[in-house]
């Protein structure tokens, strides 16, 4: 076996740094860094403008910082931002450029937001979501390039080693690979709308190989896991409760009176993970195609979904719950040519305030 010299060297360097840090931490507390706490807002950007960004909200003082990557690195991100996650002190930003073949992944120090490394365009196309999949290991779903009729090709999951900041493997998965979730040693990869896929992929994070694919229903979108460890999807117009240990769909929960025109999206759990919130919306052809709809919620043990009383009388393109306070954060874009807003609500749907974000706020990371 031959060792890659760069790999060995960087291991040595990281060992040294870790060692130094270890020494430091025993002697004195580390100074706090600007991005140690706060709510990170993932602003998708206006696609053709390549102006995605990450902004920061101080949840208590309401202080805002816009485009923190640009503040810390002079450069701005060269594309839209599809997702951001933290893995062992590193921040991973998925950058989606409007030109095919120009996407990238920026890796920053999660505490300072200073650029650490960049995974080049040659390694990926259409990155979608990122999660931690082990120590110093991240998984990134990618759609790959589109077919000429804009249908989806089979997607893949990038395995990124954060000690070297390199892609170590590409795991082929189903079409339209989108949101993913790691529970124990399993990563569940779901799909996006219009993917026409019906399965999810389950990857063994120890071996980085597909363990199983499971039929869930038409275009299964991942919601997350609930208080009982059950994994939820939205597929074929129904909410699907999935048992990860037995790999069996336990139930499919339908709307009490399903709307023929409305569709569900922007899913999130409440703080206790006992209820699911979602946007239910449509374009009203009778009213000049105005976007209409509300945000509803249902309990994980409900047998059907009632849409008689909304939690919030507004629809958001991104919805998330602060795990510390239980407050609901909704991302709203008046247009993708002006700054969007983050609406904050108490868990019961009472409006707290609205704060400015970047262009197209859709995702949140609470720290």
């Amino acid at each position, binding site marked *: 076996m031959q060792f890659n010299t760069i790999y060995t060297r960087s291991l040595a360097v990281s060992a040294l740094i870790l060692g130094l840090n270890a020494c430091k931490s025993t002697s004195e507390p580390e100074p706090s860094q600007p991005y140690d706490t706060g709510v990170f807002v993932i602003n*998708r950007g206006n*696609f*053709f*403008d*390549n*102006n995605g*960004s990450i902004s920061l909200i101080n949840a208590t003082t309401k202080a805002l910082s*816009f*485009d923190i990557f*640009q503040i810390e690195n*002079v*450069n*701005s991100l*060269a594309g*839209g931002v*599809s997702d951001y996650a933290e893995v062992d002190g590193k921040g991973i930003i998925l950058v*989606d*450029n*409007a*030109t*095919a*073949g*120009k*996407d990238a992944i920026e890796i920053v120090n999660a505490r300072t937001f200073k650029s650490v490394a960049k995974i080049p365009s040659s390694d990926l*196309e*259409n990155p*979608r979501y990122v999660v931690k999949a082990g120590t110093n290991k991240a998984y990134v779903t990618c*759609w790959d*390039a*589109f*077919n*000429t*009729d*804009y249908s989806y090709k089979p997607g893949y999951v990038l395995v990124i080693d954060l000690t070297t900041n390199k892609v170590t493997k590409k795991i082929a998965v189903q079409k339209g690979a989108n949101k993913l979730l790691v529970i124990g040693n399993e990563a569940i990869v779901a799909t996006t709308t*219009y993917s026409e896929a019906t399965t999810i992929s389950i990857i063994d994070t120890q071996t980085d190989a597909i363990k199983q694919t499971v039929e869930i229903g038409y275009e299964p979108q991942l919601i997350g896991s609930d208080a009982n460890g059950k994994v939820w999807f939205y597929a074929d117009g129904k909410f699907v409760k999935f048992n990860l240990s037995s790999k069996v769909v336990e139930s499919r929960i339908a709307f009490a009176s399903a709307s023929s025109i409305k569709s569900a999206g922007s899913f999130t759990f409440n703080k206790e993970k006992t209820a699911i919130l979602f946007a239910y919306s449509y*374009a009203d052809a009778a009213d*000049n*195609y*105005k*976007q209409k709809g509300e945000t509803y919620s249902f309990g994980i043990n409900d047998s059907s979904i009632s849409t008689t009383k909304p939690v919030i009388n507004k629809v958001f393109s991104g919805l998330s719950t602060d795990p510390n306070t239980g407050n609901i954060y909704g991302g709203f*874009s*008046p*247009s*993708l*040519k*002006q*700054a969007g807003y983050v609406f904050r609500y108490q868990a019961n749907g009472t409006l707290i305030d609205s704060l*400015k974000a*970047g*262009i197209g706020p859709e995702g949140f990371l609470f720290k």
Partner: protein
Amino acid sequence: MSFVVYSVRYRILFSLLGLVLPVFGYAQEIANKQIDEVKVTGFATEHFMAGLKVQKIDSATLARFQFQTLADFLQFQSPIAFKSYGSGQLTSISFRGTSAMHTAVLWNGLNINSPMAGQTDFSTVPVLGFDEMSIQYGSAASCVGTDAVGGSILLSSVPKWKQKGTNFTIGGQYGSFDNYNGQMGLRFVKVSKSGLQFSGKTLLYGSQFNNHFNATERTDNKGITYPIEPSETAQKGFIQDLYLKKKNGNMLSLNIWLTDNKLAIQPDVIVFREITQSKAYRVLSAYQFGNTNVKAGFVKDILDYGTGDFLTPSHSETDRYIARAEHEFSIKKKDSFQQTSLRIGGEFVHYVAKVDGYGGGSITESRQDIFALLRQQFTQKLTASLNLRQAFSTRYVAPFTPSFGLEYAIISNEKTQIKLTGNIAKSYRLPTLNERYWKVLGNLNIQPESGLNKEIGANWKQVISTNLNASLGVNVYHNLIDNWTYWNPDKGYRVENLQQVLSQGFEIMGSVKYLKDKTLAGVSATYAYTDATQQKVYDVYAVDIIGKQLIYVPLHTLTGTAYIGKGDWSLNIQGLYNSERFITFDHSGRPFPSYFIVNSTVSGKIHFGKIQSNLIFQVNNLTDTVYPSVRKNAMPGRSFSMGLVFSGNVFKQ
């Protein structure tokens, strides 16, 4: 590239180019009559634009930049802002703060803005495509018709009757990044014994921009890095002009202009490739007899957009059938400066559109215009014009657009000329076919936009000495455009007449010219201040954008040219400064930084017997300035090119 797949699918694209018939009505006095109807020799609408600023570009300047596109050329000749997606990519105009749809581009009097998108991609119009050009500032809808809200670009094909025999030209250009240009053509004049004159021009041109930049990104002096987008552009065109003139001045003409432009993004990677191909076929026939001019035209615009192997692109095709008739009455009082010109006319345009995005089938629409243009010269010093136009459509009521202009010379002597001008004009823009028919997003109830432009100007020309003269001009304007269309995100990007835009500002143009024997030198500069803002609250979030400078419109624009020439050789340096440009309605995010670019050209003539060769050596972006395109990609850095054009008289009559 990924998300908002539908916006990729519904991406609204464009087509092509243009020109115009210039006119100068001049009077011929006939003795023994107190009042005579005079013959009009040409049909330039500029004649009726009293009080408006019209900048004529001479043919020598056009020849010097013959290998450029109109986008590159106009940026340095005028304070007009352009929005470019990259080298050889979609470049749209913003004239006096208005949108790309608010500049009428006329080719021999025909509006050649794409009927689908209502605009022209100036990167697809080569300077070679026409013989003369005028840039008209401000609203001139009464003279020009729809789209002339911010200004208009008038391109014309002109016969050269003074030429003897047949001239040929053949030439090419090679430059940095493996970019090529080529052209070959003939121009002839024949006079029969009966006095019948026959003239024509045939020109074939093409270019291939490979854009081999040999880099993946460019970094400016502040450390901001912009990616380079791989792209390739191939353009070709064919021009055929024919003119037959009788001794009495009656003339029959035929103008044909065919163009084909193909742009490939990521040309070398099939799975990433994105191709836009636009073709235009334009045919115009005109007959002028006495003071009457009739025209018949046909324009076909084809647009294909696709990815990968480009086997099944999204296809759009629009045909326009145009008929126009005009008659001019021109009378002049003997021994007086009083002269009256009245032109009345009408135009009929029939559209047939087959556009994938409209949901299959073909859509037809007809539009009509009638107009009356009156110019009255009262004295040597005072001239006025009153123009009226009304457009019709079965679908909507177009605004009635009158205009009134005045020109008064305060001083007019051999050395000094000072002229004051003023114009007030209503303008309009008819909805584009995309705005009306695009599946779901289009809106059949969309109304025409309407504007009111007011402007005043002062122009001073001074002969300083026998060899030196100077000019200085100032124009101040206020242009309010209502019913401005907006693809409303709140309605799923359906188009609505939501906004109202106020564009106000001023332009200062100055020049100094020195000419002695064979030496020519000069400097000219233009500064424009453009304040263009959205005025109307249409939803709660519009508050964030009200009163803010429109996106991609620089507040300050400065262009300048300095030249020196002796004999057959000349050096020309052009500069362009644009202040920072906002990229969001509410000015959030980092704006595009201000930038300054300089181009230089050395041109000369060498004679080999009867053959003359024109040598053009060009350095663009001399300072290697880094500045971004609309998509935040890097625009090209310094580039060199060498062009050589041979011309000569082959068959002397």
